[in-house]
């Protein structure tokens, strides 16, 4: 072994230099994508790494670089083009080679990187050329057995397609013969497509149709779909070398833009509803175009307001360091998911509550080094802050490995403070929730760090104002976790519009799990809440009709909208599910702000106002139903 150590160390050294040179080449390529000289130089370096790797027994390195080189060969031969994705993945591949050089045993699998590289090159190859096909079939085509759908599918088999209908020839519904084929299509096919292949698709219709085939100009034309989600990678990634161009914009301007977009979305909803009533197909297509554009604009605007949570974690680091000194306890502070993004306003409002939670964790959660030693824990306590996306929510967790919450102590304190009674039967979760009540403080001694009266109730109010929720979990002796669940964005959500006795309400779509018919046995009864059996699990349900004191008689076919929040579910019984809609959230005025059950209001397409249901609060109501029935069972 020792005899080989020398040459293999030399190889490591040489390979690291080559990888560095490959990286420089890649970063230069990013600026000069078509430079074949650069591509050739990267290729040569790769080839050298592969060759000497195999010679010195670095088989994993050689195998990986072989695949990397093969992919790069496609660039060299002009079969694929360099683009940003290719560069980004190649840079990752360089990191991977470094990992393999250091220790092949612990390096992660290289296959995903190679797959990503192939994928990036495929899309690069395809994004070059393409065709625009515009076609109208004869009116009797469908009667004679031609299937437009199949023809479009055949076109789709030629390359990535974007299809738009050309409805200009469609008359109003009353004059329409449904067996006539009046729609035309405009199909963009990406990639290297032979016009003869397109003609072959329409071979049996050759001299009967208008078929226009033109080259596809701009590879990112107006028909391109707007990105549906915020793409954190683009804005947050601290790119190596030249980062993305950025520009500072005053927050007020972004706020104003957001307001305008909100108004646009409302106007768009009106247009859509008018177009639908008018039954004019051309108008409807325009309305749908505008809808798509408005959605794209909405998403783009919201993504501009997103900032990574890492932008405020710096001050927590400092805070923990100071706390550690003051309390004389060694504390390690760890963060993860710092690139998780939230609306700027949300992040700013969260800073203080998080400071409070972290203080609590350091002051009350973590034990003194002596106490920790006594229970065989490492002297250094740990506080972790992590953030992650979960559906339409962001979860921010603060976890400590301290002593955990003491349910008995909380209970005693709550009774002292009149927050509960001696004979109240509370579950552990219910007990923990008392910590969030105004006036509750578990600190046995008031220190200058926490326990000054303002406490978790302030945290709770801030989080609830942001339409979020707090969850508390704890394991005695092992620490506690406080989770903040926050909606991704504040201003606009997708809503499910429902009707109860002629009144319309909007439910945030992200919280809707499913919609089912209200089973017949429940339909007749109106009264106390009970449970629905949904595929074997019991889901509590409430009749919104009762909750909202609706007097009009229910429809014959009531529906149940099952909504979820924080892992719990509740079924909401409604008369009718109307539609999905874009919901611009308007805060309720102070006159109604204290009302539970509504998180805001929105303006519908016809100009009327609809209330937005507050799913977390309704789910909490469902939990009380469950707790109560559990208590009844215990009593029985």
């Amino acid at each position, binding site marked *: 072994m020792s005899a080989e150590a020398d040459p293999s160390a030399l190889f490591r050294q040489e390979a690291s230099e080559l990888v560095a040179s490959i990286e420089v080449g890649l970063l230069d390529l990013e600026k000069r994508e078509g430079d074949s000289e650069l591509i050739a130089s990267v290729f040569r370096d790769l080839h050298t790494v592969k060759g000497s790797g195999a010679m010195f027994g670095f088989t994993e390195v050689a195998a990986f670089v072989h695949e990397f080189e093969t992919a790069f060969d496609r660039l060299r031969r002009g079969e694929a083009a360099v683009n940003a994705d290719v560069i980004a993945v190649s840079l990752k591949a360089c990191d991977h080679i470094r990992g393999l050089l250091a220790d092949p045993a612990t390096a992660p699998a290289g296959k995903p990187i190679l797959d990503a590289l192939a994928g990036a090159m495929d899309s690069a190859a395809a994004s070059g050329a393409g065709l625009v096909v515009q076609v109208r079939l004869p009116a009797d085509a*469908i*009667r*004679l*057995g*031609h*299937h437009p759908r*199949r023809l479009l599918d*055949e076109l789709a088999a030629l390359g990535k397609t974007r299809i738009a209908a050309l409805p200009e020839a469609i008359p109003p519904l009353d004059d329409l013969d449904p*067996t006539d084929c009046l729609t035309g299509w405009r199909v963009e096919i990406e990639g290297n497509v032979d016009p003869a292949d397109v003609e072959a698709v329409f*071979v*049996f219709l050759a001299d*009967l149709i208008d078929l226009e085939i033109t080259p596809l100009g701009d590879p990112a034309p107006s028909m391109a779909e707007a990105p549906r989600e915020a793409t954190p990678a683009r804005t947050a990634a601290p790119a190596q070398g030249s980062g993305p161009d950025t520009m500072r914009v005053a927050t007020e301007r972004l706020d104003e833009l957001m307001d305008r977009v909100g108004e646009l979305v409302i106007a768009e909803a009106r247009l859509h509803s008018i177009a639908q009533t008018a039954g004019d197909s051309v108008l409807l297509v325009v309305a749908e175009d505008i809808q798509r554009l408005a959605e794209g604009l909405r998403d783009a605007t919201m993504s501009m307001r997103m900032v990574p949570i890492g932008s405020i974690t710096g001050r927590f680091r400092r805070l923990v360091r100071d706390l550690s000194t003051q309390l004389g306890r060694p504390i390690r502070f760890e963060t993860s998911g710092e690139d998780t993004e939230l609306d700027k306003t949300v992040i700013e409002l969260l800073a203080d509550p998080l400071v409070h939670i972290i203080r609590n964790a350091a002051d009350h959660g973590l034990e003194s080094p002596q106490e920790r030693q006594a229970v065989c824990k490492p002297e250094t306590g740990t506080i972790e802050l992590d953030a992650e996306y979960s559906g339409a929510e962001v979860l921010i967790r603060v976890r400590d490995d301290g002593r955990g919450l003491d349910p008995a102590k909380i209970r005693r304190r709550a009774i002292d403070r009149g927050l509960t009674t001696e004979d109240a039967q509370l579950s552990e979760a219910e007990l923990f929730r008392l910590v969030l009540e105004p006036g509750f403080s578990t600190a046995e001694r008031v220190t200058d760090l926490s326990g000054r009266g303002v406490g978790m109730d302030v945290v709770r109010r801030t989080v609830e104002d942001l339409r979020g929720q707090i969850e508390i979990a704890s394991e005695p002796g092992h620490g506690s976790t406080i989770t903040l669940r926050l909606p991704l964005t504040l201003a606009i959500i997708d809503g499910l519009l429902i009707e109860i006795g002629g009144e319309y309400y909007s439910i945030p779509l992200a919280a809707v799990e499913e919609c089912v018919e209200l089973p017949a046995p429940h339909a007749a009864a109106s009264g106390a809440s009970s449970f629905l059996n949904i595929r074997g699990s019991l889901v509590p349900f409430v009749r919104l009709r009762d909750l909202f004191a609706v007097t009009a008689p229910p429809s014959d076919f009531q529906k149940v909208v099952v909504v979820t929040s924080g892992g719990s579910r509740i079924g909401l019984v409604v008369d009718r599910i109307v539609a999905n809609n874009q919901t611009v959230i308007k805060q309720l005025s102070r006159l109604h702000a204290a009302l539970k059950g509504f998180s805001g209001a929105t303006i519908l397409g016809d100009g009327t106002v609809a209330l937005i249901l507050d799913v977390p609060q309704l789910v909490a109501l469902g939990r009380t139903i469950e707790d109560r029935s559990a208590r009844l069972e215990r009593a029985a």
Partner: protein
Amino acid sequence: MTKTILAVDDSPSVRQMVQMTLKGAGYTVVEAVDGEDALDKARRGRFDAVITDQNMPKLDGIGFIRRFRELPTAVGVPVVFLSTESRDDLKAEARAAGATGWMTKPFDQTMLLNVVKKIAG
């Protein structure tokens, strides 16, 4: 759901070849020996596609297509017209009668399958 194809030809060997090819690809095939037999069968049921020869006793292919298209069960049903000569005027006549597509004999199994898949899905 398997698709049912009506194959109309007076040649038993052609019918058998069509039968075998399409069955192998998962279609159900009903055979008819001439235009009148085919019309009779089309009146009694609906097919997902029809393949018909031109030269047949009693009723030829174009005559069959013309009368087939008058049936209510024929709306939306694709018809493939087969002929031995690749004559444009015959093709045009068949299309005017209501044919959806065509194929020139002799054809092999791949050609047949391609056309049927294209037209009947």
